[in-house]
């Protein structure tokens, strides 16, 4: 057998004339690689033609080209490569199309916010408040073509402080609830009730949470009790269910063997939870908490009814009104500082929106970093 093969290969290599280029018979009935690009180019040309006939617009052009490409690519593949591959091609391109459609809003939002927000971002905007900035000043800057006065420093401080307090309230409550649910309450009526109410809490509209906090503190401190901590309580009402859910899921995936190993060493349950179970799950818990923060940092309605609106810097969450970035944006757009010259306010709003997106993005990055730092160590 091997002798035959050797002889054959000797013959082949001994042959001085170049071998006749023969298509691999295993690759028969396949479209060449360039074909799909050719179909794409054709579809775009035909799409352009049709869209011009019906009055040109970019959206119509893109939609026509995509539909023509989908039909042409799957029909040609079916004809050349067979029914199964034709179906495969159709679904593949449909999935790509769905992906692109899903990306359009995201890219569009990012583009718009960057385009409109970037001009407003400078050190003045970042480090000064709206204190003393009036409609007259805005009118003057527009008239003189000067840079916009007034920034979002107070709102950034407000966002950070209120979110920090909301986190301080909801992380212990949420984590302890999750520990009870997973480690102590398995199958008990109380834990079923808690799970049910946590699910209900997940669905609470944020304005209701805000009204709850406002009414609760109104009962204790009298009406018009508006300050940062009330807003923090409102946000924690929204955060707690998220923290409970994510922590619960993380604790559930800690292998039972680890708990048993710890018990078998004569370690008490609470120490096992504190020293074995939670450290094993901490990376997931930390990223869950960060994502919960990212969720509430953009809330507007509950802040408006609990912390009000402020234009000056307020570092104390226990007294006076406070602004956050979302309420700052809302206020700048809805009631521009100068009703006749709204451009400065619009610019501030977009800059604040960009800042908010950057903060949420930073939080997500921090979540990943935290997760990788706390993850169980690998290596030998």
């Amino acid at each position, binding site marked *: 057998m091997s002798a035959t093969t050797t002889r054959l290969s000797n013959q082949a290599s001994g042959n001085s004339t170049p071998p006749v280029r023969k298509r691999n018979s295993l690759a028969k009935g396949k479209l060449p690689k360039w074909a799909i690009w050719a179909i794409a180019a054709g579809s775009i040309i035909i799409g352009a033609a049709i869209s011009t006939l019906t009055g040109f617009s970019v959206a119509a052009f893109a939609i026509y080209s995509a539909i023509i490409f989908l039909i042409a690519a799957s029909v040609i593949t079916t004809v050349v490569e067979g029914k199964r591959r034709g179906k495969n091609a159709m679904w593949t391109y449909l999935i790509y199309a769905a992906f692109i459609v899903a990306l359009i809003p995201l890219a569009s939002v990012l583009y718009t916010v960057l385009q409109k927000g970037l001009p407003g971002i400078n050190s003045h905007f970042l480090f000064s408040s709206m204190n003393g900035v009036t409609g007259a000043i805005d009118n003057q800057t527009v008239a003189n073509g000067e840079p916009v006065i007034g920034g979002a420093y107070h709102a950034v401080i407000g966002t950070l402080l209120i979110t920090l307090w909301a986190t301080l309230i909801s992380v212990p409550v949420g984590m302890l609830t999750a520990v009870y649910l997973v480690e102590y309450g398995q199958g008990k009526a109380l834990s079923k009730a808690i799970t049910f109410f946590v699910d209900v809490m997940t669905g609470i509209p944020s304005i209701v949470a805000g009204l709850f906090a406002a009414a609760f503190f109104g009962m204790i401190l009298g009406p018009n009790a508006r300050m940062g901590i009330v807003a923090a309580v409102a946000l924690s009402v929204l955060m707690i269910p998220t923290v409970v859910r994510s922590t619960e899921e993380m604790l559930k995936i800690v292998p039972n063997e*680890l708990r048993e190993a710890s018990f*078998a060493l*004569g370690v008490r349950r609470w120490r096992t939870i504190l*020293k074995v179970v939670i450290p094993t799950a901490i990376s997931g818990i930390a990223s869950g908490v960060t994502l919960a923060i990212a969720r509430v940092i953009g809330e507007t309605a509950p802040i408006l009814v609990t912390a009000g609106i402020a234009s000056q810097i307020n570092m104390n969450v226990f007294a006076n009104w406070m602004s956050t970035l979302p309420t700052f944006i809302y206020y700048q757009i809805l009631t521009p500082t100068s009703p006749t010259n709204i451009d400065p306010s619009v610019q501030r709003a977009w800059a604040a929106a960009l800042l908010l997106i950057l903060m949420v993005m930073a939080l997500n990055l921090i979540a990943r970093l935290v997760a990788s730092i706390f993850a169980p160590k690998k*290596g030998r």
Partner: protein
Amino acid sequence: MAKRIDVNDLNVYYSKFLAVEGVSINIEPKSVTAFIGPSGCGKSTFLRTLNRMHEVIPGGRVEGQVLLDGDDLYGAGVDPVTVRSQIGMVFQRPNPFPTMSIKDNVLAGVKLNGTKISRSDADDLVEKSLRGANLWNEVKDRLDKPGSGLSGGQQQRLCIARTIAVKPDVILMDEPCSALDPISTLAIEDLINELKNDFTVVIVTHNMQQAARVSDKTAFFNIAGTGKPGKLIEFNDTTAIFSNPEQKATEDYVSGRFG
């Protein structure tokens, strides 16, 4: 060290299901006792009742007495944590704590309980326990590396080191070699022979050759059928069980003519 265990007429339940019925057995100190029997006959379940790990499973409970040198493990006012610190356990699959280094894994029983231990005492304990588990020479240069980076057999010996570091009187082993290769199995079996000098060892195994190699006494458990409780059929010297069993069922099982 090394206490005896006497079990009187023990019934083990999962909620209402009777899993093991009427077991009475006397385990001598400083001996190796092997539990053999077909899958599902309750030998692991019974083993877990010997250090009150059975009740960790929701619905798990027992009736009867387990005496550790005369003290009833299930007596009123007995703290299961005290029991478990005197009767250690090694599990079927190696389960070192993934967040801890090799050293911390060995010290887990001490540190997790919040006991203060000086650095030199800790180092001594780590070396002694790892030597006791025949692992010292393999890991002495990487004590600060994670325990999960070791091979399966090394991980299992790490778990044994972790168990002997809390200085128990009895060590229970639940099929400690079933996830290991023959070389690692041999290492563990050698270790069991050495552990016998200081501890009372009880081992559950599916491997009859292993029972014959390592144990002084062997208990054969069997089950009449699915849904029926497991029972202790015969308990005797290992040589007697394998060469001259009294019960027909034992003879069928050890000679491979079972089922």
